[in-house]
């Protein structure tokens, strides 16, 4: 059955007359020296992309031809090395410093990336912070900061890119949730609430804008080897690994590969989905 895709494509070309807006069409502005990379119009914005899952995702999307905005909050050196590694393979990227939890900084970043790389047609809400503590003693500050960066920032950026995506009749939003949003992890009430909130946000926005060629999906990584989790894996990893059918932690690249798929044209009929990338932990 290819009817859905066929109808969508016809609608796009006949009714908007803007077939050229589809990112598959090469743009001379983003001409690449490396023929392996197919340039696209518009750009991808990945938050929290100076390291870990975000960095791996920025690289993966660049390999698929996207010009990438590499957001970082503090680790400028890390973000610049991600940009350099993308340029090395013939891709295009810029580093964007902004605390996405701060509304003004996030707005400025959106304006800046659109001006420099074109409309944001791919948004990966990856930036995340933790501030763990048992609920009985979890302060408002820890609660609010985690909700602000992990959930509110994702909502605001989503709101900010939907206009351009609707105009283009194309968009991909991928929210990086967590296995913690699907099953309990004592000590992370704030993080879990934010990550579960991301799943509800994903589904709701997917239902709202699906008709415009925009898909909104989430990945729910489990134990991934990043700086955020290195401490866990070096301390009580044995007990935790026992809960993972794969009996190992995952790599940022394994998560990035799933995000790359959800962004790809091949995933055009996947919308509102939550893809666990956790070695079976949530199974």
């Amino acid at each position, binding site marked *: 059955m290819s009817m859905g895709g066929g109808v969508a494509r016809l609608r796009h070309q006949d*009714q908007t007359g803007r077939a050229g807006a589809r990112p598959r069409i090469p743009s001379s502005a983003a001409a690449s020296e490396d023929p392996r990379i197919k340039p696209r119009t518009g750009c991808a914005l990945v938050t929290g992309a100076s390291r870990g899952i975000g960095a791996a995702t920025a690289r993966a999307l660049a390999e698929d031809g996207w010009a990438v905005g590499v957001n970082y909050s503090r680790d400028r050196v890390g973000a610049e090395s991600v940009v350099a590694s993308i340029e090395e393979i013939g891709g295009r990227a810029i580093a964007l410093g902004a605390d996405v939890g701060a509304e003004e900084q996030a707005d400025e970043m959106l304006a800046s990336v659109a001006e420099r790389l074109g409309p944001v047609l791919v948004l990966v809400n990856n930036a995340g912070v933790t501030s763990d503590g048992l609920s009985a003693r979890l302060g408002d500050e820890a609660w609010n900061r985690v909700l602000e960066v992990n959930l509110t920032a994702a909502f605001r950026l989503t709101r900010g890119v939907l206009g351009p995506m*609707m*105009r283009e009749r194309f968009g991909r939003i991928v929210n990086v949730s967590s296995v913690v949003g699907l099953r309990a992890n004592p000590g992370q009430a704030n993080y879990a609430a934010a990550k579960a909130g991301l799943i509800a946000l994903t589904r709701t926005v997917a239902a709202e*804008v699906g008709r415009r060629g925009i898909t909104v999906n989430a990945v729910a990584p489990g134990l991934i080897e990043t700086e955020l989790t290195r401490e866990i894996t070096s301390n009580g990893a044995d007990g935790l690994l026992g809960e993972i059918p794969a009996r190992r932690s995952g790599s940022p690249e394994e998560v990035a590969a799933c995000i790359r798929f959800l962004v790809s044209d091949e995933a055009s009929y996947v919308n509102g989905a939550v893809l666990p990338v956790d070695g079976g932990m949530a199974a």
Partner: protein
Amino acid sequence: MTTAIKDQVTERVISALVEFGEEPENVKPDSRFEELDIDSLDLVELAQVIEDEYGIEVTDADMDKIKTVQDAVDFVAERQS
């Protein structure tokens, strides 16, 4: 606002509605959105078109009052003058 400009705005609003999937022959200046195949997302996008192309801020309250193509044209005319 001159008639020529009003006609141009009318044409733009109708072309936006056609872009949203409405059949061109169904859209007339006095067409009520509720009779057309126009839903809330389409109206959000229409508001965006008006904001982007005419430089007018459109609030939710403004949108609530716009029920027909003519309402949209009158709104733009009034705000631009």
